[in-house]
Each structure stands twice: as structure tokens, then as C-alpha cells.
């Protein structure tokens, strides 16, 4: 553990889970107070999204985009494709509850990075063996020569220790520092999204890490607010179905809310 403060609030035991009638889905006692995530008044003004029914078109017509990036999204009315099925809650999403993973407060990462001896070979194809020891990795902070025989060896660095290190001059969108968020290593990386903290998602809102369309292959790709239209809250909501062994709950930019998916990458 390299985090000097807890990044993700993980709900462990202690609370007696409630089982929702009809669905078998487990709810936590805090569900009742967690429903405001991404409400219109808290998530920024909505843009010109239109088309909200299953089978209907979703798009943003016209030539000008309005509205700040927020958390409102089209309600799909329980559109299919969610393995295992989830109950509707009002406009079609699941009953909001506290996600297993969310970012309640800013994290600062430990400046100490583990330094087990590198297993890089002393020689080899330089396109695959870009370094031979940690000492070769001196172009950034906490450089480590990491890899394996299949992937090759490269230097990795801690690219950030706090969110302020991830400020982007070319974009007003939030970027945050995720400790040990590297795909192939344990280095700290900057990630995009539409929130940095739960507070960015409005009163009672939650800002959670999301996998991308390649699932765990590309690890967490960004942080996004949960919304009232979410069709899932956690991966556990996405079980079931012959093709769903690797199903996960992820933020879908296309529809502006969270939904179950499976792992395929490019089709």
C-alpha cells in the first residue's frame, strides 16, 4: 500500500445488507441517502442531449454545444443488454446506492516506491529491453525498470503524486492522480474523467473509477460521476449470462451514465 490516505472507500462488513425484493440485488443501508448522485442541480447544466427512449436516436443535433460537462445523461428506461437485469428506479436506472469504489477525498501518493531488484536481462533487443536496471531509469521520479519476457522491459516513472500534478493546460476537464494506476506497472498516473471527487458530483454524489471498453486489460481509464440513470453501480450488478463472465459496470460516454458491459476491446 503506497497511499498516504485511502483512495477508495471500500465497504466491508459491519452493515447488514438488505435484499431488494424482486431483484435479489443487495442494498446497503446508506442507499436511501445516496440517491442524489448526479442530479441536475449538482452535476452541471445539461447539454443538448436528446432522444431518450430505447430504440430511439441519441444524438446532439445542431452546430453548437451547450452546457458544462456534468453528469446528466439520457434515460434509457432500462434498455436491454444488462446481464442479469436490474430493477428500474424512477427514470430507468438502478436504485442509487454507495458504490464500492468512489473517491471521497483527494489522495496524495506516497513518494516511496517499492524497489525490488529489476529482473531485466543484461542484454537483448533494445526495442524490447529498453533498460537493464532501475538505475537506467533516471528521466523522471521513482524510475523503475519493469517488464517480463513477453512484454519486454521499459522504464516507468511516477507521473504524479497529487491531483495538482495532473493539471492540463489544454483542457478544462478534471484530471486526477491515481496512485499505482499504471497498466503494466505500479506507477502513479494521471487520469481524465468528469470528476475528481464525490463532491464534484453534487450533494450525495459519487465519483468512481471506470474501466474502458477493453475491461481490465487497460485498467481504470477515468473517473466519472454516478447518475440517477445508472443501470448498474458496481461490477456485482453485472453477473449472469453465458457471455458475461467478465462483465463489469462502466461509465458509458455515449449515454452519459453507468451500464454493464463485457470485455471485448475492438469488437
Amino acid at each position, binding site marked *: 500500500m503506497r497511499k498516504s490516505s485511502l483512495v477508495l472507500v471500500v465497504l466491508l462488513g459491519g452493515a447488514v445488507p438488505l435484499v431488494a425484493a424482486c431483484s435479489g440485488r443487495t442494498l446497503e443501508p446508506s442507499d436511501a441517502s445516496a440517491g442524489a448522485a448526479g442530479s441536475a442541480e449538482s452535476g452541471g447544466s445539461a447539454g443538448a442531449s436528446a432522444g431518450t427512449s430505447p430504440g430511439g436516436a441519441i444524438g446532439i443535433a*445542431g*452546430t453548437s454545444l451547450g452546457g458544462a460537462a456534468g453528469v*446528466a445523461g439520457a434515460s434509457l428506461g432500462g434498455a436491454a443488454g444488462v446481464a442479469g437485469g436490474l430493477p428500474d428506479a424512477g427514470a430507468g436506472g438502478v436504485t442509487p446506492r454507495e458504490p464500492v469504489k468512489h473517491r471521497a477525498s483527494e489522495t496524495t501518493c506516497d513518494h516511496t516506491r517499492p524497489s525490488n531488484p529489476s529482473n531485466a536481462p543484461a542484454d537483448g533487443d533494445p526495442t*524490447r529491453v529498453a533498460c537493464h536496471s532501475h538505475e537506467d531509469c533516471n528521466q523522471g521520479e521513482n524510475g523503475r525498470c519493469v517488464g517480463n519476457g513477453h512484454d519486454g522491459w521499459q522504464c516507468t516513472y511516477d507521473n504524479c503524486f497529487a491531483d495538482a500534478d495532473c493539471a492540463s493546460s489544454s483542457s478544462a476537464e478534471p484530471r486526477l492522480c491515481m496512485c499505482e494506476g499504471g497498466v503494466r506497472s505500479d506507477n502513479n498516473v494521471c487520469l481524465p474523467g468528469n470528476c475528481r471527487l464525490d463532491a464534484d458530483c453534487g450533494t450525495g454524489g459519487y465519483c468512481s473509477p471506470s474501466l474502458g471498453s477493453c475491461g481490465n486489460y487497460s485498467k481504470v481509464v477515468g473517473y466519472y460521476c454516478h447518475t440517477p440513470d445508472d443501470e448498474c453501480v458496481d461490477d456485482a450488478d453485472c453477473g449472469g449470462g453465458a457471455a458475461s463472465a467478465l462483465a463489469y459496470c462502466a461509465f458509458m*460516454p455515449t449515454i452519459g451514465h453507468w*451500464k454493464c458491459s463485457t470485455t*471485448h476491446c475492438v469488437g
Partner: protein
Amino acid sequence: MPLGRVLVAAFALLLSGCSGAAEADALSDVERGRRYDESETFRREALISSLENADNGYARLRLERYRPGQWEALPIWAPAIRVVSEADLGGAKPTTGFAPLEVDAVPWAEAPLLELGRRAFYEYPVQIMDFAAQAISSAEAPAHYGLWSADGRLGGLVWTALPAGATALSVTCATCHATTRSQQLVTGKNNAQLDLGLLASDFRGDAPNVVWGPGRLDVTNDGSDNPVAIPDLRPVRHQEHLQRAATVKNDLIALAIRTETLIISSLGESVRPPRKLAFALALFMWRLPDAPLRSPDEASSRGAGIFAQRCAACHQPPRYSGPAIALERIGTDPGVGQSSERGTGAYRVPSLHAVGDRTPLFAAGSVRDLSELLDPSRSAPGHAFGLDLEDAERADLMRFLETL
């Protein structure tokens, strides 16, 4: 029911089935496209008959979800987009100039559908890719990551309007399946310079992904790093199979379903493309012209004879494709063919149309080009056919292949 009536009913059903199949075969491409758009039954049957191996992940997912109440019920997605050009380099996200592709008004006729397909090939967002921002962050970035630039377009990227006023960068078909030659855009040709692995890792300041390398990407999450070379789509209508691992038996409608479901899964199963657009894309790719590198001459005529003796059993004219070949027989890197997601135990026999300037070759892209393919000293294993040719024979054979 009396036996006689049962037999009559069964015979009638048989006739009905036969005439239905014959009727479908007699339809024009556009008429088949329209049936694909309108008939769930037609789509379902086409999907089932196109799958080579019903047990791999690709097939299981589609058999489970390409049906009413599942992917059929997803909202249709036709977002407003704005083409990325060199004017966007180093700049902020645009807020104006967005417009959706017009789909509904396009009539079911060949020419308008081809035009829709052409535009969609370059402008319909098939996958949202935030990390593409890294590739337009500076004047030097596009070339560094292998993006092409031509005709006012940069790498086939588009800004895509999303709910709540958000925008994101997306890739189109053309990002991977177009490139430039002498500054002219070559539609359908694989972009062998595109380095998406490096682009993704650089965006998040991660360890450089040197596993994929230019022109390759891992398209499956099957627990193995098995990047595949981006395919050259120019000869797609000649292919016996779609996908390197011979996952899909090829046909225009199979290609449309392949395209539609690729977009669905690449967008996280959250939306689906308009089916007319998916068919237009397939039709556009189906109509891509042959692209021989040179005209026939005396040397290529000699090479044609060598080809007939040594190559045509697998690469069968006139498509220069053929039935898939077992992994152990071809002997190349089996990684892609063994994938639990795409694998069939075989590799497709690729059409050799346009092979003259294709690079790289083999499913994993382990051979640079024709010259290396036929070089007896090459290190990449497999496809030993032709390695024993004399130098003059090899030159003639290459000359012939460049005329395809």
C-alpha cells in the same frame, strides 16, 4: 395430425425454406441490405450461418445478445461530429461546427448508400478514445503516433458530441484502415504506422507499450497479449473469411453484421449504429476497387505459372483466397488463432489482391512484406511455401503477385 398431413406440411415447409433461400440469393445487394435492416429473422439467420465456431467468445456473445430485447433494443446512436484536422493541433476542444451524419433521408439505392458508407467510413465514431488527445497535442504528435493527414482530415479522428454537453475524441474506420501514399489517401489500406499502444501508454504517462508496435493492436481481452496486424480492407470482398482467425464466413450481410456488432461492442454495448449506416459501411468496403501495384508483363506471366503450381491450391483464383488452414499446418505464430475470443483452430487464407504493397504480413504482423515472406533466411516461422524457389523464380512470382 394424420401422417399424410404431417408429410404435406413438412414438404411445404421444406419448399418454403428452399424458395426463401433462393429468393434471398436472387436479391440485389441493396435489397439484401434492406432485408437486413428490416427483418430480425433475416439478421439472426445470417449471423448464425456466418459463425465458423459457435463456441468462441466472439460467437457466444453475439448468439446471446444479437436478438430482440438485447442489442436490438439499444438506442440508435447518430451523434453530431466534427472532423479533426491539422487546425486542431495543440488546441482546445471545439464547441461549434458539430453536425450528425444524415442517415434516415438516404434512399435505399446503391449510389446514395455508397456515399453514406464513404462518409461513415471517415466520420462515424466507432470507438471513443480519450487518449487520442495525445496524438493531436502538438504539431509533431500525429506523425509520432502514425496518424495520416490528407484531404483536411487528420487520422480519421472526429470530435464527438456526447450527453450533457461533453465532447470526446473518437476513432473511425479510417483511423486504422486508411493511409497515405505520395500524400494521397488510400482507403481501406491498413495503417501500418499507427501505434495505438504507444499512444495509450503515453497519454497516461504509463510504461511505453512496446508489445504492440506500429500497425498492430490487441483486439481481445482473452488474458493473453496477442496483438494482431491491422487488416487491409481493400480486398475484403475477396476474402473467404473475415478476421485473421477465420472467425466469420464472409458475405456482404455477414460483413454488415460484423460491422454493426463491432461498433456495439466497441462502444461498450451502450448504443448501436443505425443499421442502414452499418450496411452502407459494409457496401462501401465491399465495393473498394482492386489496387494492383503494377500491370502484367513477361516476368509476371512466368510468375503466374509458378503461382499456379505452388500457391493456387490455397490462394484460389479469382479471389486468391480459400478455405481456412489449420494452425499446425501453416506453422506461423498461433497466438491469434488460439485466442479463446476469436479462435477457430485455423487461420484464414488471405486474399492476395493488393498484396503487392501490403505490410506487414501474417496474423501477428511478424513478416514485413512479400520480399521477406519469400526470403529463405527470414526468422519468422511458418508459411514455408515458396522458400525453396530459385532467385529468378522468386522474382517472377513477386512480379505476378504485384499485379493482383
